[in-house]
């Protein structure tokens, strides 16, 4: 790649929008070319400046209640807890919009907000303590890989619905033998397999189809650091993790979570039959 090509791709590279092969080519060029590296550093500094130093404005306390109140007004649904606090003034819609209501009822709202906040803290505390930042990072990596596989026309390295084609291909490339199962009878046909590199180790990525949606199933040998099982939603994607003692599995897709749970169950059942 020459400097002109690099210049055109450098933004997409910075934004992690390129496929791994192109990204690697760019990184190689940046190592060798001081001028391009400088340009990249400045771009990256801008990106960091915004993501790290620019303020992220969190919704002010009371906004949630205001929204919920106005939704209930618009639908005419009873707002039980709010009505308990006493009759509301006329022209409630306008009042709520202007924030007058918020001021009149601020004590109640502040109390409610405090309760909600406490509940949120209590309910998320254990999971926060359990989850190191690495998990967040891994989830981001998994989604990025899933999205890239859909965008960059690099869905599969070996395209086959036959597990007996996909498995030997993966086994030859990896230092572990990932289970490859065909679930087409259950509505999740296998599309193929791909090599990936995640969380500092190689991973097998199996691609399954669910109606019009695709599921990436990432598999690698379980390490002591891998936690048990969990379902998360990030950027509109569902992530489902489990492990069976030998392997850690991450299923990533935009199908709904029940489909993904179903997929996991079927996969485990099939695997147990072997």
């Amino acid at each position, binding site marked *: 790649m020459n400097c002109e090509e690099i210049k055109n791709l450098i*933004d*997409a590279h910075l*934004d992690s*929008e390129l496929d791994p092969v192109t990204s690697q080519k760019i990184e190689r060029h940046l190592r060798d070319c001081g001028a391009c590296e*400088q340009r990249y*550093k*400045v*771009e990256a*500094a*801008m*990106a*960091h*400046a*915004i*993501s*790290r*130093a*620019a*303020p*992220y*404005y*969190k*919704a*002010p306390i009371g*906004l*949630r209640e*205001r*929204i*919920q109140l*106005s*939704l*209930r*007004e*618009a*639908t*005419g*649904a009873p707002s039980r807890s709010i009505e308990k606090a006493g009759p509301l003034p006329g022209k409630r*819609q306008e009042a*709520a*919009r202007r*924030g007058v209501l918020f001021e009149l009822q601020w004590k109640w709202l502040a109390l409610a907000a405090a309760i909600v906040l406490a509940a949120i803290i209590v309910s998320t505390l254990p999971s926060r303590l359990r989850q190191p930042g690495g998990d967040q990072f891994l989830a*981001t990596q998994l989604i990025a890989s899933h*999205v890239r596989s859909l*965008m960059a026309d690099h869905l599969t390295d070996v395209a086959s619905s036959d597990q007996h084609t996909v498995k030997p291909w993966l086994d030859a490339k990896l230092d572990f033998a990932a289970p490859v199962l065909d679930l087409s009878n259950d509505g999740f046909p296998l599309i193929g397999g791909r090599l990936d590199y995640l969380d500092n180790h190689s991973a097998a990525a199996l691609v399954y189809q669910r109606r019009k949606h695709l599921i990436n199933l990432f598999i690698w040998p379980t390490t002591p650091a891998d936690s048990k099982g969990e379902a998360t939603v990030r*950027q*509109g*994607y*569902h992530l489902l993790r489990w492990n069976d003692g030998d392997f850690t599995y991450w299923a990533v897709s*935009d*199908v*709904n979570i029940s489909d993904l749970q179903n997929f996991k169950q079927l996969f485990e059942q099939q695997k147990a039959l072997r």
Partner: protein
Amino acid sequence: MAATLEAEYAFDAEDLRSGAKIVKFAVIPKQEEQSATQEHQLASFETMMLPHMDAAYNLARWLLRNEQDARDVVQEAYLRAFKSFGGFRGSNGRAWLLTIVRNTSYTLLKKNNAIDLTTTFDEEIHASGDELASPSAILEYEENAELIKNAMNELPAEFREILTLRHQEELSYQEIGDILKIPAGTVMSRLARARAKLRECLIGHISQEK
């Protein structure tokens, strides 16, 4: 299903006539069933959309540069979102909500005749002068929150929003393209221009400080 459709229809018609008056379903039979449906819909709407309230507020806050307006816009956006929630079939609730927040913000910006709606940015500027700026000078200031905030606020709205969506919400080009209704290629070039312009503003601030 029929009951749901009827309820939505009745809601819209009544809503048009009476402004935002509280709607009763008195004329339609199976009233209880319908309000139960609507309550259910409200509950699923809140479960899906309220977690994105910070993202919604942050975008509105950057676009409007004003706390009170941002609060009003987010509240209004949630109302609008709920009204069209029946038609929402996607899986990316955050992007969908942000689209509505953005549209609502622009409605207000236009009403207030905000002057910074479009870019008056001279395309030639960053092609010529920028090479002079020393990267180390910029790197030195990349953690200076106040400086970054002021520089960001000087940018036109379309740059503020795209920088927020990319670097704070970490959305992909595709998602940003969906929200801004532009192709992914345009997202890339607009982001590049936004970062270049931000750099320019930063250099301006830095040289003022010195």
